């Protein structure tokens, strides 16, 4: 697999994931409370029509229900023998209809949207120790890893065949498990390297701030009081640094002052709200005009190090 999502532009594809989940939930509840086979059949028929008009096609509808067909047959047989054939038909119809409806959702919704929904839904449980970001990332990795697992099983079986031996179940399972554990370590490294291990809600955004920064609000080893929460974009390189000393120690070139005529351009980063403020707007006050965070008034004493000033 592979992504379950099938690209398209139908109303079903465009509908918000949360709306689709709610409708799915309500309709599934209806189907599972319903004993009338005609009503269940009508819902299944509507699902099939939706497969057709959304461009997903009936082939995908069949692909969705194919894995559960053996279960459907089993239900029919067991219920037919021990209870009644009618009962078996109702139960298996419910299952088939539920799978069709779920298929409509997963084929028409990007994994990203599903993950966002999981992320938002679990948000209130943060205070109970839940980590919505890790939960949604784990869900995504599970979906993404299915082809990796099947490829690993295939490779293991082929290794036995290449040596003229028949693959036993433990003989395949053990090397596959070892390979997957090794692979999971590498994937963990990739997640860290891509900066995805931390919840984006709690990781600061905004442009990168260079230099010996000590926190996520632009404080540095030189200036790190409560109110040292601005970074300055340097005219010479276009990069943000928390202060002139950070630039001097790190950039490897001299500071070029911002000309007076260019001080209307965004050149100050508020470390709290990550807004980029025009230099002249920053110079007029001691707090962030966007979020109200207090700035260090003492920085004014150093403005000649960054900007051309009247004096």
């Amino acid at each position, binding site marked *: 697999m*592979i992504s379950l999502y099938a690209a398209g532009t139908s109303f079903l594809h465009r509908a918000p994931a949360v709306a689709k989940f709610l409708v799915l939930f309500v309709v599934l509840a209806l189907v599972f409370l319903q004993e009338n086979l005609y009503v269940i059949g009508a819902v299944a028929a509507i699902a099939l029509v939706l497969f057709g008009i959304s461009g997903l096609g009936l082939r995908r509808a069949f692909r969705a229900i194919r894995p559960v067909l053996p279960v459907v047959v089993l239900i029919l047989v067991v219920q037919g023998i021990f209870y009644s054939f009618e009962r078996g038909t109702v139960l298996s119809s419910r299952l088939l209809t539920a799978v069709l409806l779920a298929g409509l959702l997963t084929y028409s919704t990007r994994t990203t949207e599903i993950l966002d929904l999981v992320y938002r839904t679990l948000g209130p449980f943060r205070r109970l120790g839940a980590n919505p970001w890790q939960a949604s990332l784990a869900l995504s990795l599970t979906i993404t890893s299915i*082809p990796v697992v099947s*490829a690993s099983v295939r490779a293991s079986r082929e290794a036995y065949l290449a040596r003229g031996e028949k693959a036993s179940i433990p003989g395949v399972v053990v090397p596959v498990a070892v390979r997957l554990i090794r*692979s999971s370590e590498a994937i963990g490294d990739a997640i860290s390297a891509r900066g995805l291990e931390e919840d984006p809600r709690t990781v600061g955004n905004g442009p990168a701030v*260079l230099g*010996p920064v000590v926190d996520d609000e632009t404080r540095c080893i030189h200036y790190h009081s409560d109110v040292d929460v601005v970074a300055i974009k340097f005219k010479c390189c276009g990069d943000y640094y928390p202060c002139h000393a950070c630039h001097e120690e790190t950039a*490897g070139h001299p500071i070029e002052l911002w000309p007076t005529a260019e001080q209307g351009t965004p050149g100050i980063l508020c470390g709290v709200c990550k807004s980029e403020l025009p230099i002249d707007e920053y110079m007029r006050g001691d707090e962030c005009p966007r979020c109200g965070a207090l700035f260090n008034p003492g920085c004014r004493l150093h403005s000649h190090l960054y900007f051309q000033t009247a004096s």
Partner: protein
Amino acid sequence: MINVSGVSHHFGELPVLAGVDLELGEHRIGFIGANGSGKSTLARTFNGLLVPDSGEVTVGGISVRRNATLARRHVGFIFSDADNQIIMPTVAEDVAIGLKRLHLPADEVASRVATALDRAGLSAHADHSPHLLSGGQKQMLALAAVLITEPHILICDEPTTLLDLHNVAIFQKTLRELDQQVILMTHHLEVLGDFDRVIVMEQGAVYFDGAPSDAVESYRELIARRPVAGGGFTARSVR
């Protein structure tokens, strides 16, 4: 700029980095050396995937030991096996997830992803599973997924090891066109011809540091002096 100061590391009893001191400021820097010479281990200290036993690495002045999360925003990392870098079920989603922390509007994300996929030559595969791509395409996907976050420095740890010559050429051309500082660990010596600086690693230390042609020559001489161990296979031993 990456500064490496007195970096040493052991895996158990085995020393893998032995007091490495480097100032890495050039636009494109290559690292070469035999398997086990310490290239990959050193690369992993540049973004905090590995915290060395001793010594300090700073990226743009940020201490990787003290603030790896912050340092990683400046350092993109490409691994040799692109399969392990795939996190999301479709190509476009895998690229887009890197933008999560920027909290951009959906249309801005879509626009940046489209541009990144176009540059990587993957526009036609946006909604495909990454696992259906060829090895070269997967590595271009990994590159797009990293570059979309606009890192200042790109570390590539043997990214062309699993690629054919054609895909090596494509990857090389892409690296050449990047504005970012590129640090490349590789066994493909021909890729390094137009690099600014090439460093040869041997037994966890810097063996040679200089121009690409001199470094490659030094590396070849080093390998030529090394005895070839192992008895090889004979027809009888195979039977």
